[in-house]
């Protein structure tokens, strides 16, 4: 971990006392935990339609971040789920009666599906999966990079229910020569010069994967407008740049789609780590795809105060790009020693895996708590952050500092 953050944490060590004294005020602990983070300090908590208090990144288009206190549990509530749009205006009104999902292009039978069609004509599939913005934690890159300066809250885990994309494509009849499908939502920029947010996936990628779905249900309810009502694409294991919201059109094409949001946007260095020497440019790039292994401490919050000798339960989540979390370890001595955390229920290989560990601060003083995860194919997290110019793929071992006393 880089030193500026550590130094900052030291300088705000006294903040823990304020967190405790304000503990009875419902909104204050979250707001103060947020102020203890150099990237989030100064950002207001805001309440958007169908949303609870979230950390504002940008107003227009709306980008909202989930406070870390929600990451002590596996399921992220719909109203706390992060929001990320690329262009403005964003969809604010959908008439389900007239909304249609069109499946067009290189198909035998173009489709225009209503929401009822999606629900009634295709078998229901459910998958619990993490949506994480490619640029989650970009604000922590050193050297800093331009872009959405997220803290760590551009992620969430929900149970998604919908129709399998491959069933829709099979119903339309994908023709020979099909290479990719493109996905477009209702968000249309005000100026024609601004590139529409259109993403693409290889046809083979989606026909082979029964977990890629067009979801119309999130945690048992309809999707909030800002999370993609009435339906969004869900691509488990892959960064949520592909999870096109307010989905309206799927087009099958005979080539690799390379418009702005696929190229040059959302690309990573074509190197095994997806990284380059900090501050340098990659020679070649490829589209970002599978998520790296990450783990977080949801409680206690960064900057919290604990009592020496009194047991505390550390809780958090871990996830990866779809192989599943095999093991989570925690450390209270800056990574010198590690011990195994207890894993919570397995909600599937694409989901947040809850973990907890009992911990007792032996004596008064500051403690650096760390967490790291290992997935089913042996991928883990490093002590030194990897770097790329777009600020993607962050998966360094994260830490929080708590004060015992």
């Amino acid at each position, binding site marked *: 971990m880089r030193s500026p953050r550590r130094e900052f944490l030291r300088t705000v060590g006294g903040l823990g006392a304020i967190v405790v004294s304000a503990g009875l005020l419902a909104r204050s602990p979250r707001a103060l935990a947020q102020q203890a983070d150099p990237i989030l300090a*100064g*950002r*207001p908590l*805001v309440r*958007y*339609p*169908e949303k609870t208090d979230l950390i*504002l*990144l*940008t*107003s*227009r*288009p*709306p980008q909202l971040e989930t406070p870390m206190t929600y990451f002590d549990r596996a399921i992220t509530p719909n109203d706390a789920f992060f929001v990320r749009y690329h262009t*403005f205006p*964003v969809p*604010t*009104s*959908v*008439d*389900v*009666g007239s909304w249609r999902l069109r499946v067009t292009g290189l198909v035998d039978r173009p489709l225009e599906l209503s929401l*009822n069609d999606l*629900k009634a004509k295709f*078998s*229901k*599939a*459910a*998958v*619990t999966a993490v949506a994480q913005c490619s640029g989650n934690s970009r*604000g922590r890159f050193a050297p*800093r*990079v*331009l872009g*959405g*300066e997220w803290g760590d809250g551009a992620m969430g885990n929900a149970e998604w*229910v919908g129709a399998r994309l491959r069933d829709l494509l099979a119903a339309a009849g994908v023709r020979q020569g099909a290479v990719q499908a493109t996905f477009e939502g209702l968000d249309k*920029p*005000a*100026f*024609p*010069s*601004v*590139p529409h947010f259109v993403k693409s996936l290889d046809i083979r990628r989606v026909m082979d994967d*029964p*977990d890629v779905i067009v979801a119309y*249900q999130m945690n*048992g309810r*309809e999707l909030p*407008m*800002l999370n993609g*009502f*009435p339906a969004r694409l869900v691509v488990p294991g892959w960064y949520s740049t592909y999870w096109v919201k307010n989905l309206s059109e799927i087009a099958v094409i005979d080539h690799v789609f390379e418009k*702005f949001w696929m190229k040059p946007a959302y690309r990573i260095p074509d190197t095994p780590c997806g990284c380059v020497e900090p501050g340098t440019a990659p020679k070649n790039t490829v589209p970002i795809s599978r998520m790296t292994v990450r783990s977080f401490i949801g409680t206690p919050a960064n900057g919290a105060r604990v009592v020496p000798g009194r047991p505390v339960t550390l809780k958090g989540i871990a996830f990866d790009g779809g192989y599943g979390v095999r093991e989570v370890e925690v450390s209270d001595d800056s990574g010198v020693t590690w011990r195994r955390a207890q894993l919570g229920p397995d*909600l*599937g*290989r*694409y*989901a947040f895996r809850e973990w907890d560990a009992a911990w007792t601060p032996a004596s008064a003083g500051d403690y650096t708590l760390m967490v790291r995860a290992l997935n089913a194919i042996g991928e883990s997290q490093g002590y030194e952050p990897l770097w790329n110019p777009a600020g993607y793929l962050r998966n360094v071992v994260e830490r929080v500092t708590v004060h015992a006393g």
Partner: protein
Amino acid sequence: MRRTLGIATLVLALPLAAAAQLKTITLPPDHPYGDLKPGPGVEVTQRACRACHSTDYIVMQPRGDARQWEAVLTKMIKVFGASISDEDAKAIVGYLSTVYGK
């Protein structure tokens, strides 16, 4: 984690299907946390940038020299088609690299 949903879920879904067909939300205006700091060129910067997005996009960026902000202006004009004259672009880079400079 993939599974076919049980009958209980299907029954629960029925009343939802009968619910309102129209869903509308209203978004709040730009939050003042994104307001630009005063300085020479702030008006033209506000006018040009707010045509497409709120200025918290600027406020949240790492501070940077004229080269950083020139690159941003070039991207806005060339990639996103922002209609900004050369003269205004110069004034905006001047403002950003002073007020949000290194």
